């Protein structure tokens, strides 16, 4: 069997230059949603704009719903660990994704991912720590529609 490798930067020199400049400028890792919200429920990750890159992230999630989020910094984040300030509102679990991501330097690493689960309505914070830097996600868990 062959490993699945996804090229993130492509062959364009310009595209390859962007993450290089980002690293040189001290950019922090970026987060991205990898799964869609189910019908009638919310699972949305948005960056909070900063000067050069997102200053933080906000996540709106329905109770009982999950979303997968990846962390990268030119290539998958190293030693990523995420914690919830209030696991009763939102739970964070590491995710095992069997896919390789090729970074700007040409190396390939297994995706760094987590799964966030809305447990009950409320607001809290997820703190993502990786070798490349830390990120904060402000989470709002909304109740499901009444039946």
């Amino acid at each position, binding site marked *: 069997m062959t490993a699945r490798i996804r090229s993130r930067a492509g062959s364009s020199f310009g595209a390859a230059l962007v993450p290089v400049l980002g690293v040189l400028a001290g950019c922090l890792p970026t987060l991205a949603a990898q799964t869609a919200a189910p019908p009638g429920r919310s699972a949305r990750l948005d960056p909070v704009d900063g000067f050069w890159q997102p200053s933080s992230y906000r996540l709106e999630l329905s109770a009982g*719903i999950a979303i*997968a989020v990846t962390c990268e910094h030119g290539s998958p984040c190293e030693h990523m660990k995420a914690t919830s300030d209030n696991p009763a509102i939102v739970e964070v679990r590491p*995710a095992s994704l069997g896919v390789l991501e090729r970074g700007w330097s040409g190396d390939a690493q297994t995706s760094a991912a987590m799964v966030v*689960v809305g447990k009950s309505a409320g607001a809290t914070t997820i703190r993502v720590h990786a070798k490349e830097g830390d990120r904060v996600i402000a989470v709002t868990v909304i109740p499901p529609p009444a039946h």
Partner: protein
Amino acid sequence: MRLLPLVLVAAGCGTTGALQQVSLMGQCAESDAACSRRHPVAPLAVGATFHPELETSVTGTTTPTLRLESADPSVLAVDASGALVAKAPGASAVLISADDGSVVDFVHVWVAPVTAVTVARRDGDRIVGSIGLAVGEDLVLAPALWNGSQRLVGDASVRWSASSDATISLLHDGSADRRRLRARAPGKATITVALGDAKTSIDIEVVP
């Protein structure tokens, strides 16, 4: 992120996880059409149980040891045997995790109340009128649970009753909800199938 295409197994039906690494199917024999129709692509009926079978499609590994967890046990619980138990209307993520707790995949499962019960033959043909049987003849019937026009899935504790035990016997056939009707003596009987407030009746005429 899109992973390997999923290989669905014999029943030809199942739900692929959001990360496309795990498929969740019913525990059905290939030839058991009545069972395979219970695949969890439809909502589970409140009060029903679904016995899942898991299969992964991750390059370079067989299926690891997996366990299921519910994001909202008040909507959908996971019992000690790994079965999904529908508790209340709503939706809940079912997390499929490896032995270290890391999530390999997840599936959002919906639960809906039962508004109607119908009865079908084992091949899925719905019973809409009366049934005539000869003495000694058997007929296997299975209930179908509905929420409006949407068919629900899962094994439910459906109540079967016959107006005349002398005319018709209702026999278990190894399934939680199916029954085998045996025509015992000439006459007429009514079979009633109920789950909660939803119920339906079938007229049976047994001839010599």
